[in-house]
């Protein structure tokens, strides 16, 4: 029988056991990032910036030169990296507590300067690593360890929709939101990450992609139920789509 290999691990993705929880979608997103790095042929000139949160260990999985940024500061660190080494492909990988709360100034201003960098933003509506506290992206009514009665709009405000906020800045080349909860959305997510990388490579400008993801452990849901929540609750509140693409502007 003739065997043909049709699916394999990207070489830039380490062949190691994961520290992520069962049903966590960081692994899927790492793979998309790894595939895009290989497809653009930039693995050897990539410098990644890992951020504080569960994904600080990005460097254990994606085998590229990496610097670890303080909490929320990845876009500022990435700015320094890109300015120092303009020939490098530079991306930051950040969670929602990191990017949308403590690092709000850094992401807004890196985007507004139109830095030639790409940012992969993983939104799972909670602080994962510290044990499931409320994030700026926590949904109204969602229970967390610091809003045990559920997030209340009057008290804590509403969830921040970062892809739309970033899209509102003049110097941004691309901003989109996607999910990895089913095959159709996964394909769309791959296209979004590709385009967020491409705008840096072509010099069009700052590329931003928000990816909705599960946190079964802190949502206190099974992996299956957590994945179902993406379609049922998250996508209605965080609509998928491309909010800005300079290539589609007149």
């Amino acid at each position: 029988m003739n065997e043909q290999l049709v699916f394999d691990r990207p070489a830039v993705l380490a062949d190691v056991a994961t520290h992520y929880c069962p049903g966590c979608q960081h692994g899927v997103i790492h793979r998309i990032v790894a595939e895009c790095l290989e497809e653009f042929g930039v693995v050897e000139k990539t410098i990644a910036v890992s951020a504080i949160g569960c994904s600080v260990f990005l460097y254990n999985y994606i085998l590229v030169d990496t610097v670890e940024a303080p909490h929320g500061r990845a876009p500022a660190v990435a700015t320094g990296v890109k300015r120092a080494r303009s020939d490098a492909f530079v991306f930051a990988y950040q969670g929602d507590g990191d990017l949308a709360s403590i690092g709000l100034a850094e992401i807004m201003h890196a985007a507004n300067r139109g830095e030639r960098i790409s940012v992969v933003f993983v939104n799972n509506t909670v602080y994962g690593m510290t044990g499931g506290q409320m994030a700026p992206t926590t949904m109204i009514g969602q229970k967390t360890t610091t809003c045990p009665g559920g997030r209340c709009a009057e008290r804590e405000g509403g969830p921040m929709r970062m892809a739309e906020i970033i899209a509102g800045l003049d110097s941004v080349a691309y901003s989109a939101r996607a999910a990895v909860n089913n095959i159709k959305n996964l394909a769309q997510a791959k296209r979004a990450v590709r385009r967020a990388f491409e705008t840096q490579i072509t010099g069009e400008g700052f590329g931003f992609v928000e990816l909705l993801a599960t946190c079964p452990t802190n949502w206190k849901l099974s992996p299956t139920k957590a994945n179902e929540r993406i379609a049922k609750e998250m996508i209605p509140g965080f609509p998928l789509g491309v909010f800005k693409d300079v290539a589609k502007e007149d």
Partner: protein
Amino acid sequence: MSAKRVFIKGNEAVAYGALAAGCRCYFGYPITPQNEIPELLSSAMPAAGGEFVQAESEVAAANMLLGAAACGVRAMTTSSSPGVSLMQEAISYMAGSELPGVIVNMNRGGPGLGDIGPSQGDYFQSVKGGGHGDYRTLVLAPATCQECYDLTFAAFELAFKYRNPVLILGDAIVGQMKEPVAPRADVPVDPAEGGGWKLTGRGQRAPRILKSLFLEDGALAGQNQRLKDKYESMRAEVRYEAFETADAQLVVVAYGSIGRIAKSAVRALRAAGLKVGLFRPITLFPFPEAELRALAGEGKRFLTIEHNLGQMVDDVRLAVRGIADSEFFGFFPGNMPTPEEFEAPIRAAVKGA
């Protein structure tokens, strides 16, 4: 710059010293009294083929410095006291990740918003780490515009030699005053600098990771041991000025602008027949403790003068402990001292024998 002497401010001397040292990335945020530095570099840095970024905050500026440092590029940020407080996070991460960079603090009055005049209130913050965790930065304290130039130049060499942040601790006096400065020829940076660790994109080699997170059993203890050994080895970099200390009965210890003002007072009192001298630490970390201790061993007494409530005096007392002590005269930030104002406390300390 040509080798001809130029008449410039201390702040400008910092900028030109950095350019001569091959600094090619500058990140800053406006704050008085150091604005001449970003203003000058906003055009001079691009003209030298480098990058200038006005950051959204000192937090961001220091983290941009971290990023550029990770690439092994000579980079600098400058600020003044309230801004340097905001940089402490990144400085701690740079120390933990062993990244070289230069941070300039033109010290102004505090606490809080304080004023925009000179102060030495940031001594503790500068020499005892400053941010969280157990670390040290090399600290250089210029007293003249020429030293602003020379020490900034030297700071880059030291930063890369030790893979560590280096602080220049000036103040509003040395930053704002104008003096003739003799520039030196630009020294080309060795392209191999940082070759063993800097991020370039992995190419065909194994990926490099620059980080300060050490979660594995024993890993952080090992890192702290390595850092401790490194900080101890910095002792080789001690610099100081000793003026008329050989036959002095009383040695005035003062650094930076205050050291220079104290020198004028010492000179005047010498002329009046008092056997006084001046010891001016130029490196505040490493502190010239062995040199001070040697003076104490000769039976000399000490008076530490600072533009704060008493900070470096702790290090002077530690240096001479067991054999001598140091008196202290603190000139409060908010006022500008003159040499004459230092003469009375020096006379009193001489009489106290």
